[in-house]
């Protein structure tokens, strides 16, 4: 097998183990609630209900879903089987809507918001960081402190400030939601325009904060690379500065890719809270609602989905990284 193939298999194995741990946590932690979780949940859910038949029916639904009478490992197998067959439980808040249906409606919004925002922020941040390191002087004196400040603003703080400034005071952008709720979703220009207008502020707040963190990391990596021996050697052989800058940029970029993989979890978390501020119809806002209503199946559906998405993103980044960094291939060959 090729060195890269080995790398992929090894990574896949580790992500598979991680996935199982994530699923197990998702299964175990909510079951730490003292007593019978189903009665706790049902009691909370059926508050004010008097009809014992309804209560019984609700109880039976959840007892079956949890496999409550079975030993823990059997419950776990039931849980995994349910997950695999697409049965992620029934929402309390929107009973009897399945959790998967709610998540499916939210996923496009979250992905449409976060994926472009994180990527754009990452790219701009890296370019700015490299420029600050390479040009030094004024660039560095301006970009670095600004990036440092922006980086320390939490996603949701920036979101709230933007909401207040641009939506509430200046009224440039709408305050709530993913589109104008008076419209019927369709592929019309009007609807797309509305989606874009609702998209702008949350998008910008994620982009800005991401830029800050990435620019700092890239600046540091570039300075490190600029001081390395190969830069001096290339200079002494008469290679022009712009070409050396390209070497440096590429080499500083590689650790930034792993950096992205490692920070993507935190970024996704921050962005989800950003959604709440704008009541954006994604996973974050649903989770907010679910927590307020103590809608356990939906909460655990959200957390599982987030964990899966982050694992998948990490795995993808690792594969890309292994593909473009020759050092990984060489390291694999040394192992043999």
């Amino acid at each position, binding site marked *: 097998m090729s060195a890269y193939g080995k790398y992929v298999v090894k990574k896949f194995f580790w992500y598979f183990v991680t996935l199982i741990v994530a699923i197990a946590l998702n299964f175990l932690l909510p079951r730490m609630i003292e007593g019978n979780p189903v009665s706790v949940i049902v009691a909370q859910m059926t508050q004010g209900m008097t009809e014992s038949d309804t209560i019984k029916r609700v109880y039976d639904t959840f007892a079956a879903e949890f496999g409550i009478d079975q030993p823990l490992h059997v419950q776990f197998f039931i849980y995994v089987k349910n997950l695999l067959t697409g049965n992620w439980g029934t929402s309390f808040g929107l009973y009897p809507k399945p959790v998967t249906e709610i998540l499916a409606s939210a996923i496009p919004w979250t992905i449409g918001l976060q994926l472009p925002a994180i990527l754009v922020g990452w790219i701009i941040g890296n370019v700015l960081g490299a420029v600050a390191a390479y040009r030094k002087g004024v660039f560095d004196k301006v970009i670095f402190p600004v990036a440092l400040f922006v980086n320390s603003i939490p996603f949701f703080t920036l979101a709230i400030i933007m909401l207040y400034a641009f939506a509430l005071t200046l009224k440039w952008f709408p305050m709530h939601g993913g589109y104008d709720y008076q419209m019927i979703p369709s592929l019309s220009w009007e609807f797309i325009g509305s989606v874009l207008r609702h998209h702008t502020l949350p998008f910008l707040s994620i982009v800005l904060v991401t830029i800050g963190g990435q620019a700092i990391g890239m600046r540091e990596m570039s300075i490190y690379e600029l001081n390395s*021996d*190969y830069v001096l050697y290339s*200079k*002494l*052989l*008469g*290679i022009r500065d712009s070409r050396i800058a390209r070497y440096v940029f590429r080499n500083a970029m*590689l650790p930034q890719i792993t950096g992205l993989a490692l920070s993507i979890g935190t970024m996704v978390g921050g962005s989800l809270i950003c959604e709440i501020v704008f009541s954006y119809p994604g996973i974050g806002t649903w989770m907010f609602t679910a927590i307020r209503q103590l809608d356990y199946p939906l909460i655990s559906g959200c957390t599982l989905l987030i964990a899966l998405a982050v694992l998948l993103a990490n795995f993808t980044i690792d594969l890309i990284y292994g593909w473009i960094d020759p*050092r990984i291939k060489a390291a694999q060959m040394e192992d043999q």
Partner: protein
Amino acid sequence: MTLGKEQLRSRVSGREISYIPQAAMNALNPTLRIIRFIEDIMKEHRPELSRKQVWELAVERFETLNLSARVLESYPNELSGGMKQRTVIAISTILNPKVLIADEPTSALDVTSQKAVIKLLKHLLEKGYIQSLVFITHELPLLYHVTDDIMVMYAGEIVERGTAEQMIFDPIHPYTKKLMGSIIVPEEGMRGHKLAAIPGTPPNLKTVPEGCRFADRCTYAQSECRQGRIELQTFQDRSYRCIVPADTLREWYAHEDE
């Protein structure tokens, strides 16, 4: 002749004067194949060559230097330490520079790799790929076999200059004398031979003492040694930086060796 920075880069660096750094381990960009790097050098100095011509030229040069063409397709970290050093030398000299400056090119290598590097440098000189070689090292026996002339530096100054033969067997300056006395080689008579030692440490270059910079560690230092500036003296075809006449120094050394 004065040159601007840009002219220096395009006309001199790499094609007139070239350089071999001390740490070949890190001298090559880790994410660039060797041939890509050579192509980049050629783009600067021989832009008229096509990629194919560059490849042919590189293969030819590498093969004359007993390096396989496979090296060209490798990434630096796929090469061993000695191999990397020889690759760096081949790259540094691919434009046939007039002067090659080698800064401790063998200090991190095993003796076998060291010998291979020395052979390579000699080969380059014989073939006329380079015209002059400046070899910086603290390994004296090595210099003796590689270079024609040796120049000894102490605390930022040249203290003596002469042919390799003269410097090893007939040093004039007290520092050179001590340095040559500290040579250790696996030759008969080495055991039991008294090695020269220099007490003290070199001066801090931020606060250079007046007079001879070696005076504090020199067995023959007199009060005159610590005054004014000591100039380089010429003696026959060589020069040294000491106020004592060469013959007197030689006499002292002869007494000492008894």
